[in-house]
């Protein structure tokens, strides 16, 4: 009998296996890398009607976030400022700058500037700013180094896993309540003696932390967590009502 299968077909199953393996690996890698909020959300930087530079206003002018986002401490929603907030200065400052034309038009007509909403969770999630910023979580943890952003973008994935990562271990992120809007805060900035005098130390710590040169984020976080009795919830209905 003649060879029914040509000689090269001996290798076919192996070749198919290699190809199949590569395709599965490729699809898995692609999905793992791309189909996640770390790719879909992070870096979203829409074109705004006014190219509002946070770095100029926060770093150069030294403005506090709460000058513009004035209800972030009392409300669930952190308001984007109205036109008057801008006009307080821009009636005189840069009053002929073409970039600010939409703001001036809005001031004349009373129609709001249509800012594009960047950080927008799904409508079935009920996020609350006041619950976080009054409990020692800084804007910088969730929104990145806003003071170095010439244009605002989404810096964090804002996925459920990301929320829970912190709700399980808030001590990795807590900081003193007066540093919430300080985007450049580092644990090394804390003076251990003053910190311990104000907030005390967690129970069961024998060592005197006020004698240390620096406190670590964990030490600061653990102290504040116990003092403020912080227990972020992992129950579904806290975030999904």
């Amino acid at each position, binding site marked *: 009998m003649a060879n029914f299968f040509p000689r090269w077909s001996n290798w076919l199953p192996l*070749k198919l296996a*290699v*190809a199949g393996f*590569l395709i599965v690996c*490729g699809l898995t890698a*692609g999905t793992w*890398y791309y*189909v996640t*909020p*770390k*790719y*879909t959300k992070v*870096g*979203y*930087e*829409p*074109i705004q009607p006014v190219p509002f530079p946070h770095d100029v206003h926060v770093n*150069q*002018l*030294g*403005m*506090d976030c*709460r*000058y513009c986002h*004035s209800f972030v*401490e*009392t*409300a669930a*929603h952190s*308001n*984007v400022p*109205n036109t*008057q*907030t801008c*006009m*307080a*200065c821009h*009636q*005189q*400052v*840069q009053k002929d700058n073409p970039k600010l034309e939409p703001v001036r038009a809005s001031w004349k007509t009373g*129609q*709001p500037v*249509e800012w594009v*909403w960047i950080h927008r969770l*799904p*409508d*079935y999630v009920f996020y609350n700013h*006041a619950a976080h910023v*009054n*409990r*020692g979580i800084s804007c910088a943890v969730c929104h990145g180094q806003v003071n170095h952003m010439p244009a605002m*973008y*989404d810096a964090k994935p804002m996925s459920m896993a990301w929320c829970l990562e912190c709700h399980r271990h808030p001590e990795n992120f807590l900081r*003193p*309540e*007066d540093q919430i809007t300080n985007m450049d805060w580092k644990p090394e900035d804390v003076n251990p003696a003053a910190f311990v005098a*104000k907030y005390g130390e967690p129970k069961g710590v024998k060592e005197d932390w006020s004698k240390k040169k620096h406190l670590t984020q964990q030490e600061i976080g653990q102290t504040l967590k116990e*003092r*403020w009795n912080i227990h972020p919830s992992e129950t579904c209905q806290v975030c999904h009502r």
Partner: protein
Amino acid sequence: MLRGFLLIFTLAAIAIVAMAGFRGQHSPRPPWELMPDMVRQPKVRAQAPLGFFADGRGPRLPIDGTEPVGYDIPKPQQNAPPEISPSGAPPGEESAHAPLGFSVGTDYYNTGKMGANWGTGIPVAVTAQLMARGQQRFIINCSVCHGLTAAGNGMAKQFGLATVISLQDERIRKMADGEIFNTITHGKNTMMSYGGNVPVADRWAIITYIRALQRSQNASVNDVPPDQRAKLDQPEPAKK
């Protein structure tokens, strides 16, 4: 054949990476919603647009001739350490005034007026906590223009907001508290109103702090308690 496949596979991978880019790259493309089932629901969220009304706004403007009923500022947490109790009132202590955020009443606390004239005096208990709150709110809301010591040299002035004045002026030092309250609430000449940003309780806290700043910049020896005066003449301790 495998070589052909590998070539195509590699080219496809390169093409996908070239098109889709990397994680964290900035792009104006809206986030891709993989399973959009209930992600966007027909409900109004704060500050969001809504096609239902002719002007396209979700949140409605107040109707002409109506007054807002008020807005409750959340009460300070019970039994919380003092540093994390928001709002001016000391924790656990009931304020004599309704906890309304924005001026709706007609009394001195809400308008700064006593009868037809500007009243003076702080209508809430002046405590160290009120002063600290005032300092914080002054730095947030006023210092960009008026400067940290209220000397009228804030950053905005240095960048061209020329009409900012010093709150250390004789005129402002003599001004009734109620008139300053009114300036915060409704603005004055080229200063726009902060009534929509600063709740009533915080306005009084800010005025308290401004009064302290004014005294600090215009103090004489007589302001120092007698038993502390001797210290003033001592040389400064040498710096380490």
